């Protein structure tokens, strides 16, 4: 009922662990699998080892969750030794990569491809990186990065993760598609800030952070809806998906699969199972046999 085909990858259900949450080790991937996810996206890796920002790096209140972790990671070379391969785990694994310069993206993609992930996701949209003009904000830069990764990824499908912090997300998605992207992941976090009025300082050590959680969902649904109008490649709809109804909404906006990250904070590690159960209940009640029947239906 929930199984989907994403760029030829057969997923038992459309829920995918979004990058940046828990996907650091093989054992955590298997644990997310046990909790019902259809696939897991690893925490982003680049060409070097990075410590990330000082704490506090994340906090939440009500429907808002902030993070400015600063892309800590062991680097692709350590990951090669740590993971050895990614195609023998209990569920499909998506390798998230980034770099500082265009050629870094290619180098990391080539090494990531040697681990045989089901898919490679290009993180051009982390809001806490200082690489001059961000790749996510310029269609030409997005296209250049996409081509560089495609040239180094072999047959492994490539998804480009976009940022909502742009004037027109459609033109960025179109640029990625034209450059050969096999899918779009939308969206990364939206930037924001919280100031502790007793400490009289921003709470995050990085001051500015990315907002996720239910507060991000309407922005994500809008972006997925707009991207679906502009491109033909599948979309991994990510941002604020916490309940089954959120996932159904994403599919109606045009998503093929849905990313869940901060949902773990709100509902526990088994949020994947909970969301899938809730989707099935809704589908049975509404006599929907598979997700194809409602994909993009909000556009009609």
């Amino acid at each position, binding site marked *: 009922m929930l199984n989907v085909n994403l760029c030829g990858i057969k997923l038992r259900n459309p829920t995918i662990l979004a990058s940046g949450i828990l996907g*650091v080790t093989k054992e955590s991937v298997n644990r997310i699998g046990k909790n019902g996810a259809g696939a897991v996206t690893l925490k982003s890796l680049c060409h070097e080892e990075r410590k990330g920002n000082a704490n*506090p790096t994340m906090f939440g209140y009500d429907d808002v969750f902030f993070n400015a972790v600063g892309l800590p990671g062991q680097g692709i070379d350590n990951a090669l030794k*740590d993971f050895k391969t990614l195609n023998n785990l209990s569920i499909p694994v998506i390798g998230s990569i980034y770099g500082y310069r265009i050629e870094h993206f290619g180098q990391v993609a080539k090494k990531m491809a040697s681990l045989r992930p089901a898919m490679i996701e290009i993180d051009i949209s982390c809001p806490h990186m200082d690489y001059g003009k961000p790749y996510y904000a310029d269609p030409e830069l997005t296209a250049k990065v996409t081509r560089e990764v495609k040239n180094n990824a072999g047959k492994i499908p490539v998804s480009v993760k976009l940022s909502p912090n742009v004037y027109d997300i459609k033109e960025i998605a179109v640029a990625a598609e034209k450059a050969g992207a096999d899918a779009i992941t939308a969206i990364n976090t939206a930037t924001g800030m919280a100031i502790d009025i007793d400490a009289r300082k921003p709470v995050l050590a990085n001051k500015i952070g990315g907002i996720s959680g239910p507060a991000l969902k309407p922005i994500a649904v809008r972006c997925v809806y707009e991207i679906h109008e502009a491109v033909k490649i599948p979309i991994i709809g990510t941002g604020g998906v916490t309940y089954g109804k959120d996932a159904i909404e994403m599919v109606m906006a045009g998503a093929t699969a849905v990313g869940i990250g901060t949902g773990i904070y709100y509902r526990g590690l088994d949020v994947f199972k909970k969301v899938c159960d809730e989707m099935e209940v809704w589908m049975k009640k509404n006599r929907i046999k598979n997700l194809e029947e409602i994909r993009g239906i909000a556009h009609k």
Partner: protein
Amino acid sequence: MEKDNCCRTEIPKIMEIFKVVNEGKGQKSFFFKGKIDSKPGQFVMVWLPDVDEKPMAISYWNKNEFAFTSQVVGKFTTYLDSLKKGDKIGIRGPYGNNFSIKGNACVVAGGVGVSSVSTLIDSLKNPLIIYGARTKQHLIYLKRYKNKKMLIATDDGSHGRKGYTTDLLNEVLSKNSKIKMVYTCGPEIMMKKVLDICNSYKIECEASVERMMKCAYGVCGACMINDKIVCMDGPVFNSKQLNAMPEFGSFARAKTGKRVSLHEYHSIHS
């Protein structure tokens, strides 16, 4: 089985330090007014604005106050050490699971790790305490536990036995069949030895494990030890869990997520 909690707040609460107690060499307890709803083994996240935020075990509690005890090891704890009564810092929590409370217990503590088992000691009925530190000056809470059964070891022999807590534990267990439960917190190498000794005597053990933390509620993945998330599944693990954890006593994840030897981990983070 897993939590389902949709209205949470994890913002640090700014609180005033109302008392600072010098406990021992480079070790201080910081007291705050108010009741904290926690169990033995749990921790709070301590935020020093502009510096960092780190986990600290709750080392004292009663109806009106609670405290944590810190030892100077690096930048964060050096800054903490300079704070005085009236200074304000951020606190959030408590987080993590807790020790079970069982009879006929022995508590093995090493160094400032004693602060993670202090509220446990307060909650146990007549526990035997085996406590070790580098020198006499590093031993803390001696007055607090003056009425408890306590065996002491120091590395240099300046107080109690010259040697290690694990030597004392071995002696106790070889003579005393009454002990049914061993709780431990201290350097991981010591805790691993404690676990091995308990295994050989078929005695249940619980250890409080330390790893680099960020979120403290099981989201970021920084504190993984094998498939366990220390901040949420732990920090207290039982013999069965510890025995199924090849990384315990051997490896830890650095801030970058890279798996390194415990030795390297401590040289990076202290």
